[in-house]
Structures are given as structure tokens and as C-alpha cells.
């Protein structure tokens, strides 16, 4: 009986099968009608829907220059004016303000957390009346071009994870950096230069390292990796043909090499082989494009004064700022600067003043320079570090040699150009500058907003890896309309 039953169950003729399947397909078809865009792709798979190498929608900014202030500049001596900290200097940070905020191992054992105010005064600048510290007078002079965000907040409390989070959207390593995502999503504008360039400089304050995982391509194709420029007089080494090799010989060599690599690719199918071939080609084309970049002879003399004479000294922040403008002007999608030396755990007033001296003039010059060339509207400039600093003193309390520890809850950065609200201040912290009381900007939101400005939907720019799709914002982040012009 049971056997018969089973027999019957399988006793389906071809006709029956198709008849039954038709009903199933009918159900599927009806279901599909309920999803209007089903066959147009739902946007989660860019390969199937949105073309790569193109903005999803009309972008506000075509390029980014990210002036990363590595080591975390203090918000209290730069963009978040908190006079109450001066009035209450020396008093202990109220427990109600600190809440459950964890501390670093450097100050967790301190008996007291004496509040300390800015050693430097603040002034209001521009029509916007933005408060900016006296050690950044030049940035003050362009206050009406920038949007100060006072409520950045991050998840990490130490440099390495915080920087990695800021740059790649995850605290663990090996996710693609912002620049790599832009290169992947938007492609390169100038085919003779990498889409993602990295410039390094070091200030005189207490420094923290930078490392290649910050500009990694992660799981993306390695053509999207940040290309680090040398801080010597020759920003790109080994670009000249060696003695006895002329242009034609180089071309022949590359062609032969590409053929060999192609054989290798056919054998093992490793996409990195193709990436390598493209990189050789890029290096070849860079031979023509780079000399123009490093040539300062066409720059008007007063450009040098504008950026400050340091811009003539290779490897300085000022020189990198000038080079960043030239790279960006030449269509480099993402120029990433890192300036080390902001980690002022002790003797902050002196260190911070030196750091500010290094970056103030040239940061402001870069923005003005883009503006006067008609490029600021299409270039997004971002200035800021990986987290902020504490409102209390680390180590022995004094009003002029104090230090500040790491503070992830609220800190300040500024942005300018491409689609951000110029001459504005976004967000508000409490009187202690410790907590966000209005309009928080989490790192994920920051990434979402930056991608939005570049014409990318952060939820749709994805890459499938290890069985799931990844985004710069991973599973969170929202675009903040208040930042948009």
C-alpha cells in the first residue's frame, strides 16, 4: 500500500509535469507583478543594474581631497569653542556628563579628570560668525567657504582602529578605503594618473603611524589601491626610463610582457594578473603626465606665498597641499593626505600651535586656490582627524602645558566645496563639549553623505566578497540632508 502510494506519487507523465509546473510558473509570474522593478534589477548588484565607473545620479562633487589630520587634533583648540571649560578649569568632569564613556588605558587610572579650557582664544569669522581658534587664522579667513561639523562621533578610542574605521568603514583591516571605493564606483577621470593618490607628511607634534592598510583596495581589484607618492623631490620614483632604454624599447618591452602575462592569465585565471598589466600601462602613461604635475614654473609667484614657502620643500604638508590641488585639477578622483603629529597627550598648547602653523595656511590656500579656478564647486575638501580629545587634562593639570586624551564621542572636522553647505556649522555639543546634543554625525553617516555628494547611492555601491555584499557603510549610515547645500 505504501509502495503503491509512492509509486503513484512519482508516476507523473511529462505532460503532467509541465501542466503542474505551469501552475507554479503562473504563481511566480503573478508574484513578479507585485515587484515592479524586478527585472530592472533591485540595485543591490551593480553588475546587473547600475553601470560601474559612473555616478548613479548627477554628482555635486567629482573629486575629493581628504586632508586627514592623523593623530586627532583637539576640537577645543580648533573648532568647538567652549568658554565654560576655561571658567571651570581644574574642576572635576561631572560623572553625569561622562556617563558610561570608556577611557583609554592612559587616563583610566587618573584619580581626577580636571577640566581644562583652550589655551588659545577664539574669534568669530566671516558672515557666518563661525568660532575658530586663534591658531587657525587662515582657515578663519575662509570661514564662509567651509562647513564645520562639531558632532562627529566614532566607535573606536585608539588610533589604529579609529583611523581604519574612518578610512574603510570598519575597525578591522582589509576593507577597501574610501578612495578605493570611489575609484571602483566612479573610475578614473584622467587615464594617465591613478584614481587614488596618497601623500604623506609629518609635523612636529607627537605622531602616530600611517600604514598601507589605510589606503588599501581590500577585496577590490588592486588597481583601486591608493598610490603613495614619495616625499622626495621626485614624487614618483623610477618613472624615468633607465639609461639606454628609449620610449620605443619600453613600449616593446611592455607589449611583450603583457603577452606573457596574458598567457599566465589564460592558465590560472587570476584577475590580479590583469590588474598588474594595467598597472604597468598606467606607469607608462604616467611618464608623460607626471612631469607637468611637479613643474612649478607655470604657477604664478604669489601662489607660493599663498600656500606658504614650505610648499617648495618636498614632503611638507604645504607641498602636499599644493600637489593635491595639481593632482585634483588633473582629474585624480581621490587625493588622500595624511599629516602626522596631532596626538597631543602632553604639552598640547605648544604642540598644537606648531601643528597649526604647518597646516593652517596651506589648508586655507588649497580651498581658495580651487575656488579661484572654478573647481571648488566640483571638488569636496575634507579636513579632520580620526577622533577628538578629552575636555579634561591628561597628566599633571596646568593651564598652559596640559595634555588631552582620546575622545571618540564628539569631535570637529570641516568640509568645503562640492555640494556642502558653505559658511555653516552643523551639530552642537554640550557646554562641556563632551556629548552631542544635536545632529550627531556618525562615521557611517559621514561616509554615506560623502558618497552621496559624489553621486553614489551608498546602499547601491556594493561588492560581493566571501558570500555577501559589502559597502563602505556596510549595514548602516544615512545621508544627512543638513550638510547638503
Amino acid at each position, binding site marked *: 500500500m505504501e509502495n503503491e502510494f509512492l509509486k503513484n506519487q512519482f508516476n507523473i507523465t511529462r505532460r503532467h509535469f509541465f501542466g503542474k509546473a505551469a501552475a507554479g510558473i503562473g504563481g511566480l509570474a503573478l508574484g513578479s507583478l507585485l515587484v515592479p522593478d524586478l527585472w530592472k534589477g533591485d540595485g543591490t548588484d551593480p553588475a546587473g543594474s547600475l553601470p560601474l565607473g559612473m555616478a548613479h545620479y548627477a554628482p555635486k562633487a567629482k573629486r575629493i581631497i581628504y586632508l586627514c589630520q592623523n593623530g586627532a587634533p583637539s576640537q577645543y583648540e580648533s573648532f568647538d569653542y567652549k568658554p565654560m571649560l576655561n571658567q571651570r578649569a581644574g574642576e572635576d568632569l561631572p560623572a553625569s556628563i561622562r556617563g558610561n564613556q570608556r577611557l583609554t588605558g592612559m587616563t583610566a587610572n587618573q584619580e581626577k579628570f580636571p577640566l581644562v579650557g583652550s589655551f588659545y582664544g577664539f574669534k568669530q569669522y566671516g558672515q557666518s560668525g563661525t568660532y575658530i581658534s586663534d591658531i587657525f587664522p587662515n582657515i578663519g579667513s575662509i570661514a564662509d567657504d567651509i562647513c564645520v561639523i562639531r558632532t562627529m562621533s566614532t566607535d573606536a578610542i585608539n588610533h589604529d582602529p579609529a583611523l581604519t574605521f574612518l578610512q574603510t568603514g570598519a575597525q578591522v583591516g582589509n576593507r577597501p578605503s574610501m578612495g578605493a571605493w570611489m575609484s571602483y564606483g566612479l573610475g578614473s577621470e584622467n587615464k594617465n594618473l591613478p584614481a587614488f593618490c596618497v601623500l604623506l607628511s609629518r609635523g612636529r607634534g607627537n605622531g602616530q603611524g600611517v600604514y598601507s592598510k589605510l589606503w588599501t583596495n581590500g577585496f577590490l581589484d588592486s588597481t583601486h589601491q591608493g598610490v603613495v607618492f614619495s616625499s622626495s623631490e621626485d614624487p614618483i620614483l623610477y618613472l624615468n626610463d633607465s639609461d639606454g632604454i628609449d620610449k620605443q624599447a619600453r613600449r616593446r618591452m611592455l607589449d611583450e610582457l603583457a603577452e606573457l602575462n596574458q598567457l599566465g592569465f589564460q592558465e590560472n585565471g587570476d584577475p590580479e594578473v590583469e590588474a598588474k598589466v594595467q598597472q604597468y600601462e598606467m606607469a607608462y602613461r604616467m611618464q608623460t603626465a607626471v612631469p*607637468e604635475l611637479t613643474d612649478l614654473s607655470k604657477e604664478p609667484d604669489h601662489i607660493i606665498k*599663498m600656500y606658504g614657502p614650505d610648499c617648495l620643500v618636498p614632503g611638507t604638508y604645504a607641498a602636499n597641499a599644493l600637489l593635491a590641488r595639481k593632482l585634483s585639477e588633473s582629474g585624480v578622483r581621490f587625493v588622500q593626505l595624511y599629516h602626522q603629529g596631532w596626538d597631543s597627550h602632553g604639552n598640547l598648547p605648544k604642540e598644537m600651535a606648531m601643528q597649526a602653523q604647518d597646516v593652517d595656511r596651506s589648508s586655507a*590656500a588649497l580651498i581658495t586656490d580651487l*575656488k579661484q579656478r572654478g573647481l571648488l564647486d566640483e571638488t569636496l575638501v575634507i579636513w579632520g582627524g580620526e577622533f577628538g580629545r578629552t575636555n579634561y587634562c591628561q597628566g599633571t593639570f596646568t593651564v598652559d602645558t596640559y595634555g588631552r586624551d582620546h575622545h571618540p564621542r564628539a569631535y570637529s572636522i570641516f568640509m568645503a566645496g562640492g555640494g556642502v553647505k558653505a559658511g555653516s556649522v552643523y551639530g552642537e555639543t554640550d557646554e562641556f563639549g563632551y556629548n552631542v546634543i544635536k545632529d550627531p554625525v556618525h562615521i557611517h553617516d559621514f561616509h554615506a553623505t560623502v558618497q552621496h555628494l559624489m553621486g553614489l547611492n551608498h546602499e547601491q555601491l556594493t561588492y560581493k566578497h566571501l558570500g555577501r555584499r559589502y559597502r563602505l557603510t556596510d549595514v548602516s549610515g544615512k545621508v544627512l540632508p543638513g550638510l547638503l547645500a
Partner: protein
Amino acid sequence: MITKIYRLNANFLIFIQGLLIFVLAFEDKIQLPFGWIGRLHPLLLHLPIGFGVLLLLLFVLQKTLSLPDFTQMFRFVLHLTASLTAITAVLGLFLSKEGGYDADLISFHQWAGIGVNVFYVAFLWWVEREGSTPKQWLYGACLGVLAFLVAGHGGGDLTHGEGYLLASEDAKGPKALTDESILYEAVIQPILKQKCESCHNDQKTKGQLNMSSIAKILKGGKHGAIWKAGDAAHSHLVERMLLPLEAKEHMPPKGKAQLTADEQLLLQAWIQEGASTDKSLKSYAAGSESVRLARKISASAQAIVLSSKTYAFSAASEDKIAAVNTPFCSVYPLASDAPALQADFYVSKKFDLKTLENLSQVGEQIVGLNLSKMPVKDADMSLMAKFPNLEKLILNFTEVRAAALGNLSGNTHLQSLAIAGIPSKVQDLKNLLVKIPSLREVFVWNTGLTAEDVSLLKKQFPKVRWEAGYVPKDEKLQINPPILVNENFILRPNEQVQFKHTLKGVDFHYTVNDSLPDSLGTMKTRGPIVLTNFTKIRAMATKDGWLASKVVEYKFYKSRFLPDTVYLLSKPDPKYPALGGSSLKDFVQGARETKGVPNFTWLGFKDEDLDAVFEFKQAKPVTGVTFSYLRKTDSDVFPPVKIEIYAGNDRNALKPVATVKPEIPTERKGYTQMGLNIPIKPGSYRFYRVKAYSLRRLPKYLMKDDKKEPVENHGKPAGMRVDEILFY
């Protein structure tokens, strides 16, 4: 057994009918012992509906079952349906006693519910009696389902609001705020509607408050008016919304959508500022908090609006776009959904006019063109006519002259023009603006226009943004120091010292006598500097309009004659053999030791003197010898105590020509490379012999300076390191 249950159920049903009649009759006097029991109504009501439907579905099985089996099943389900319907009806009645519902709706639902109950009781009676047929049962089951539909719809209207079923789900997006908008209508009312109305409406008036229209809101509820215009702090609405979320009285209740912080602030501000329901934004005083918050809320509510511009032309084909792309000209769509194209030229020395001409293939689509730094000329501007939809044109630092910009008159859509670095006159720009009235921004930095010129243009064309950019201030900055071109500090006979500078027109002031250079008295050059022997150069850069640079300082060792052979006669320290005597003339400068490991650039002696003979194939008129050595007294490296030089043409009969005693340091000092010029008696010889005597007994002062220094060192031999011996 089952018949017993059916009988019991029949009794139960009769009991319930009685209860219903009683409750209906004494509606106002009833006091429920368990007030919450009525709230089980929404839970329970789904069961009879389900069974009622099942009752109908049973007929699908009718043919496969024997009549007794079917009858048994049908009766069972019908009993369940009837009793559950009755219980649900009672609970519904209890719930209606809680009040707060629209009277019409509730009365409809109540009587419909009771009707269903009565129907099923009657149906059950009909089925249980002898002689009824399954066909009649089928009609009954159908009727029952219909009755449920009617009663259930009434219930749905009560809980979800009238018209819920068929209402369109299109959410009405918030309207953009203008100065004319009535603040109440544009912002306050939508908030109240969204966050309050679901419990305070025509159907459901919790707390006797109905907020479905402003008139009804102003009537207030159980506690009277919900706000006092001008007194937010004492307004009932504000009090309740500011209670902690956990508080029972907090509004909206926990679990419902809460007011955001900004919405709370706005409601307070609006009440404080008079709670006007007909004032437009512009009639509020400047600096009004309500207006500020209203604008903010309305801005953030308007989600991200993507301004996708529509263009009058259609997209160019991919093939065409590919055809106009070259390695030095990128042409790409502005966005995936726009037909508009941007074209950027790169690498000026690779500029090809043909590429620009070629662009006319997609001329209609091009809205942005960047020719910055390209060698385009006046005549090429006529090509711009092929881009009728051009909106942004960048001509910075091209060879176009401002006068030729008139050729752009065909570009009637041009909004943005950058001509930085192109010498221009006010008249050129005036002509341009008259020809292209669409222009909204012009970038005129570095065009030679004065501040007055720009303000004149601003005055005449106030709608245009004139961007003059950075105007050099009078401030004087310190110029960078000179950059040394030389890579080696030991100079061969023809080598000179050369400084350079990244700025043009820079002078170098320098000294060679240990004094500081200044911009007046010292030597000045732009060219090379010729040295004769070991020299310390101090130099600085000067330029008009800049402050003089910092002073840089370099030591150079200079050779005039190169010996052909060196014979080292004494034995070097086995730790510092270098490459023997040839190290003395190899032009390789002594390098620092890394981690105490000796390197081969220094020839060292300890407890031995340096004795070397230098041979020239032809006699040379040497005027002096430069002896270069290391001084590092903190690791026992000392200068020689005496240097003797002999010369002659017969190697075996050399005569003394000089003797010097270098200064022995009297304090501890770190690493210093020293050079000593030793002039000799004039003459021309083939052989020169240099003897340098090392310090045999370390002096005592070492210990005095640093207590940590081992006492045993005193009296031991010092080390001597020699780098080069040069002849000038």
C-alpha cells in the same frame, strides 16, 4: 459523549444570549469585576471567523465522506463557531464600555456582532433539528461568512480608522516651506496628525480629546484646553509630552511613534509664540524660534531630493562616446541617468586640436568642457559653437585672449566660465556678458583685473558671481633657504659648489670665513662658488618681497691635485682597516657607524701613528694639505696630537715642509667631522709624506665630566680616524 457536549454547549449558548440581553438592557449600570477582560475581544474574534470559513470549506470534502461522517464534522465545527461567536460578542460589549469610540461606528459594529451571534445560534438550532439537509447547511454557512464580513469590517473601521481598507497608501510628502506658508498648516498640523491623531480622532477619542481638526483640538479633552497660547510651560500638551517615556501619562504613549526632540522644541516654541493657527512664516518676528525649527524640520523631512536635471537632447551612443575618448581627453556621462557629457583635457604637451574638433560628434551632449592649461588659441574658440549646450567652460591658463571670448556668443546656455590666468580687461568682460547673458559665474583670478575693475563688474552685473580669488597681501614671508645641488662634500679638482632655489630670481649671500651672511655686505651670487680647500660655507637666500631665509651651513673638502699612488707605511687599527691607504684619496666621505659596527669609510689608528707617502707621477705645486678626521671624544676618538708633512722628489730624502698640532678638545663632544687646512712651504714635488701622531694616553677630564665613564680609560690610548688627505 459528544452528544453530551453538544447539549452542554446548547445550554451555554442560551446562557450567553441571556447575558447579552442583560448587558444590553443595563448598559449604564454594569460594573465589570475584571476590567481588562473586554480587551480579549480583538484576540478572540479571529477564531469564530476562522471557524465560520472552515464551515463553508467543509463542503469540499462532502463527496468523499459518508453522510454520517460529514454530519458529525459539520456539527462539531458549527458548535465551535456558534459558541466562540457568542463569547466574542460578549467581550465586545464589555470593551465598548471603555469608551473613546465613535458612537455611530460602535453601534453599527455592536449590532452587527450581536446579529452574527444570533444568526449562528439560529443556524445551529436549524441544523440540530430533524430533516434539515446538507444543501440548506451550505446556504447557512455562506450566509454566516457574509455576516462575518459585514461585522468584521465595522470592527476594522474602529481600530484602524474609517476607510482604512480602501484608502490609498500614498503618503503625502511634506510641502516645501515658503515665506507664505502658514506655519500651523505646514508643520504643526502634520506633526499632530502623525503623532496624535491615531488615538484622538472622530472614531476614537481617548481622554475625550479629538484632534482631527483645529476646532475640535481647541475644544480640548477631559482636562480642558490642551495648550495655553503664550505659556508653553503650563500647557497640558507640553506637560504630558515632556514626562519621561516610562511615565504612564507620557504622550504619545510608550510604544507609539514618539515626538522627536526638534518636534518637541517646535511645539513648545510655537505655543510660547502664541500658538497661532493662521500666521504665515514671514509674519513671525525675525529670529523666531518656531520659524527656525519649522524650517529645520521641514528641511530634514524632505528626505534627499535628487535634482536630476532634464536635458532637451538625447544621449549619445556608447560607440560615439568611445570614439571621442583618447588617453588625453576623457569624455564621460555626468551620471548614469543623464545624457549630458563632460569632456576634460589633460597633459598640455599632448594636446591635439583634432581631438577637440572630433568632439563635435557628441557636441550636442557636451555640457562641461575643461581645457585648463591646454595650448588652445583664439581661433580655436570658434569650435565652441559646436557645443550649443555647453554650461561650464574652463579656460584657465590657456593661450586664449580675453578679446576672443566673443566667439562664445553661440553658447547661449553657458553659465560658468573660468578664465584664470588669461590677461583680461574690463571691456572684454563687459562685451562677453552682453553677448552671453546666461552667465552666472566668471572666475577672473590672475587676469590682471584690479579690485576696482572687479567691483565695477559686480556693480554692472550684480547677478553674476565674480570670483577674483587670492589677492596677494603686503605681508612678507620668510623665503626658503638655498638648496644645495652638490651631493658630495669632498670636491674633485673641477667641482664647484652650486646652490639653487625653487623660486626664480633668488640671490644667494654667503660667507666662507665663519661669519654670518647678511643681505648687504657679504658675497652674493646666483652661480657656482669656487673653493680652494676645506671651507665652511654659510649661505642664505634673498628675494624682493620676501624676508631673507634662514642660514644654511655646509662643510666642503676640496682637492686640487690627485695623487697617483698612496703607500701606507704604518699598521691601522685592525677594527678600522678601511681599504688601506687608498681610502685616504677615494672621495668617499666617512660615514657614521650604525650600532657600533665599524664601516669601511674610516681608516683608524690606535697606539699607532698614521704614516703615508703620496706619489704624483709629475711634480705638483702643492700649497697645502687638507687633513680630514673624526672627533668624537665621548667614544675616545681624538684628533692627532701632531701632524708632520714632508716633501721632496726623492722618496728616501724628504724634507719637512709643515708641522701642526691640532687642538686637543678639553671637553666631551659628540660626532664631528673635522677638516684641517695645513699650508706648506711652496715648492713642486713628486712625493709627500704625512705623519699623524695619535693620542697615546687619554686625558683625565673625561671622568670629571661624566661619573659613569669607566675610570680605567684614563691613560689608555685614544682612537684616531682619518677620512681623506687632500692636496691643494
